């Protein structure tokens, strides 16, 4: 099927006074050159001839699809814009929440935390080494330790992943995590709906090297 589509300006009118109609078109016919004229109601052959003489396109007695007024369109557009802005704000807030849950200000350390060392970090920490007995880590964000922990850990983040030895003292959100609950491999400890959930990450011990 081959079809063309045009946007046409339509001038709709009903003729009551033929003289007035002709006088109006005599004045403005050039303006109506590109318009489609729709005449509702009856009209005489005199008008017909006149329109033909001025070579104006016209239709007689048809139902036009009534478009919305400009004001209504503007209002609708404005409304849409407002809704979009709101949904964008919500999406941004959600994203921010999510990203602050997953990461904020990550520090990566690859050194052994020896006895007597105290490390305080406001953001997240990824530690690629051991925490020896007698060392202390105070982490406000999330925490991942890839090697064995024997010291004291205080974590206030949304989650931590670590392997704790029986000597370790693990405090998550001011709650001491019982070492017996932590298996002798990588554990995931997270806060969900005010509950601390501990899940062993892998059945087998993984080697990070």
């Amino acid at each position: 099927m081959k079809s063309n589509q045009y946007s046409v300006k339509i001038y709709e009118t009903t003729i009551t006074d033929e003289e007035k109609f002709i006088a109006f078109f005599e004045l403005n016919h050039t303006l109506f050159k590109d318009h489609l004229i729709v005449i509702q109601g009856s009209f005489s052959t005199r008008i017909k001839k006149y329109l033909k003489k001025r070579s104006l396109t016209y239709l007689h007695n048809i139902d036009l699809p009534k478009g919305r007024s400009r004001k209504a369109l503007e209002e609708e557009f404005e409304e849409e814009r407002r809704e979009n802005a709101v949904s964008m704000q919500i999406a941004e807030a959600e994203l921010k929440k999510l990203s602050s849950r997953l990461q904020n200000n990550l520090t990566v350390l690859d050194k052994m935390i020896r006895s007597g060392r105290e490390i305080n970090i406001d953001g997240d920490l990824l530690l690629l080494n051991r925490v020896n007995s007698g060392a202390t880590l105070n982490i406000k964000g999330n925490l991942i330790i890839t090697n064995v922990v024997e010291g004291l850990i205080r974590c206030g983040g949304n989650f931590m992943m670590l392997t704790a030895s029986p000597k370790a003292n693990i405090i998550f959100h001011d709650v001491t995590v019982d070492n017996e609950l932590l298996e002798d491999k990588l554990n995931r400890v997270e806060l969900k709906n005010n509950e601390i959930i501990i899940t062993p990450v892998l059945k087998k011990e993984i080697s990070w090297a």
Partner: protein
Amino acid sequence: MGIIIAVISGKGGVGKTTATANLGLGIGMNDQKCIVVDFDIGQRNLDMILGLENRVVYDMVQVMDEEATLKQAIIKSKVNENLFFLAASQSKDKSVLDSSKVEKMVTKLKEDFDFVILDSPAGIESGFEHTIEFADAAIVVVNPEVSSIRDADRAIGILDSKSNKVKHGEDVAKYLIINRIVANMVESGEMLKSEDILEILDIKLLGKVPEDRGVIEASNRGKPVILDKKSIAGQAYSRISGRLCGQQVDMKDVEISDSGLFKKIVGIFK
């Protein structure tokens, strides 16, 4: 130009001074010129273990305060011509040490000797800090028990932050001696295994010294145990001294008792 080695442990009573005396003598036996310096001011012991207590006239503090010269204060060993000794002051305390004076003295010693071994006091106070400050390397002595390991861990941590070499962006070499190993107890799991200790401390193993009754008697007589060729601890110190002098000496597994070895052999034939 020699090398300055600090012998540290953190915890007291693990055998620092015994190790210092034996290694000093061992190095001397390997024909290297060595001086052992007692940094445990106020509690000197090294002179007794070396059997030189009646020879001490001037001490290290008097040298640093320029009341005596190094030549006057350095004591030659009776048993080995390559071994020399510098005593700590017994009357003063650790607070008399001063960084610049210590540096001046150890640099002078470094010029004259192949090995300068500093016997650190126990603990991590100023005396310990002065010992490690100008050291090129450290020998960490531990016993296979948790408190000794934790204290050594702390001492290594301080060494890694306060040593002069570290402050200039270099590394201080650190070596571990595990002292007083009782093979039976390691086998039965009562004593920590050396692999576990090495994993915690993460430094190079220099040697393992088995528990030996002869060590105490040797110290009491002022004749370091390394002189006793039959002593297992003495043999261990000979091997360690050899390694320090650059020889390739295989690690002898002192964590397997004779009965354990026998069991192992029987196990092969089962």
